[in-house]
């Protein structure tokens, strides 16, 4: 199993153990609260903002010198930040070949996906597309 599939499976298995909707959100909140990752005010700007998402979501995706992906995320919403951190943990440090073979399916397995609005689901899809795009470039 490659790194992407291993990491995604770990996340899916973790969510599967949290049967209750509240428990899944609570898990995402815990991730946010315990994370030291926070974008500086200067980086929480229009350029890094995911458009069409009513909750502020900022993401910076870069391709490093060694061809691997580096992702930085932040949000005003603890739940969405938690979700972004999960996505980051799946993709962080992967190279172009690994991302090319990847298929992001996490949202199908998490109850929280049902409660996200269509616009927010679109925002998550937009982030995955961006990751794919930047890794190919």
């Amino acid at each position: 199993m490659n790194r992407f599939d291993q990491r995604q499976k770990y996340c899916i298995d973790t969510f599967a153990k949290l049967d209750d909707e509240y428990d899944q959100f609570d898990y995402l909140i815990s991730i946010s609260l315990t994370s030291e990752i926070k974008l500086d005010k200067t980086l929480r700007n229009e350029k890094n903002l995911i458009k069409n998402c009513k909750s502020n979501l900022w993401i910076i995706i870069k391709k490093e010198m060694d061809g691997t992906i580096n992702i930085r995320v932040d949000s005003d919403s603890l739940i969405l930040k938690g979700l972004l951190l999960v996505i980051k943990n799946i993709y962080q440090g992967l190279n172009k070949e690994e991302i090319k073979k990847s298929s992001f399916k996490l949202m199908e397995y998490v109850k929280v996906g049902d409660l996200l609005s269509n616009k927010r689901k679109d925002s998550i899809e937009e982030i995955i597309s961006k990751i794919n795009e930047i890794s190919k470039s």
Partner: protein
Amino acid sequence: MNNNIRSYFPILNQDLIYFDNSATAATCSAALKAMDHYYKTDCFNIHRGVYRQAQKSEKEFEDVREKVRKYIGATYAEEIIFTFGTTDAINNLSSCFLLDMKESDNIVITEIEHSSNYLPWKKLSMVTKCELRIAQCDENGLLSEEAVIQCIDKNTKIVAISGMSNVTGVFQPINEVIKMAHENKSYVIVDASQLCSHTKINVKEMDCDFLCFSSHKFFGPTGSGILYGKREILNKLNVGKVGGGMVDILNNGMEKDSFDAIPYKFEAGTPPLAEVIGLGATIDFINSIDFDFYLKKEKEMGQLLENKLVQIPKLNLIGNTSLGSYKGKVNLKKAPIFSFSIEGITSYDLGLLLSTKKIAVRTGNLCAQPLLKRIKESDLLRVSLSIYNTEEEIGVFVETLNYLLSRLKGEKCE
């Protein structure tokens, strides 16, 4: 009629504390039964066919017009225009003024308006190049009559104002506004979307020129609403929406057409037949219960909730009538609509967590962006009660809210 008001609202028979009544109220079973029956036996188009069933359908429909007239205290049935809701009513009405507005005219609206009573007038102003004046509310989201009156002058053609803010729940004082508007020969349009479920409306007492509300905020079905207009004004008003069912003689090409008498000239297309029947049944239901008793009970629930909310640390309750420009001046009446923010916590997170605990509230900008900009908030959580909410529900909500706030602040929870 049994004592349990909740039993008349089937949608409440589920594991949910429903506190989003400002968005849509629960539909009464009387409306559901009437619509079901209508669709199964009487749903034939009206004002068109001559066959018996069409005539029967038309009579039922026009009976509702008379019911609405009586309910809101209008003088004539032809002053009642059926619409698809408030947004439809105001868009239709604003388009009636398209050919009348001059560049020297102005339209007065306010910062507390819902998007549906803001955008149509903004659009009319942009298209006709007349001035749009916007009366400001204060930093607590409260609008004084003086602020509106100051905007009115002899060139004011229209004053469009909400009877109740969907953010603060304040019964907006408008008597002096209407008086001043009429002294300047301006028309006053009252958006009664929030008012309709929290008070009995009387258009004659109010002396407004137009008033509108939606059935679904008044315990009726979605898809219908009413626009009231004084007969003498409707008779001289140009048509807005055009189409079938409202034209008398349709001439070829660009020749002028003639239109039906009121109210029909404002009801283009097939009206929302079953939904109007549902509205009629809703009025019957409201008339059959002691509505004043339930409104009094609702007020008590509101007071109970407000007393609990103001005790929560860092909770900013919008439209607190003890603050701001109203302090000490006027005893403002309020419906049980409470919008608030909590420092450091997004309403989105709170709303989602509440939903996992089977509590439904509204979050976001509440279609009230001008008001939110004024009070420097970007998103709020709104709790809006109705006649069927209970003290027990309020207790569960506050307890859950406090628990979730602790969680979101990273405090340990049992």
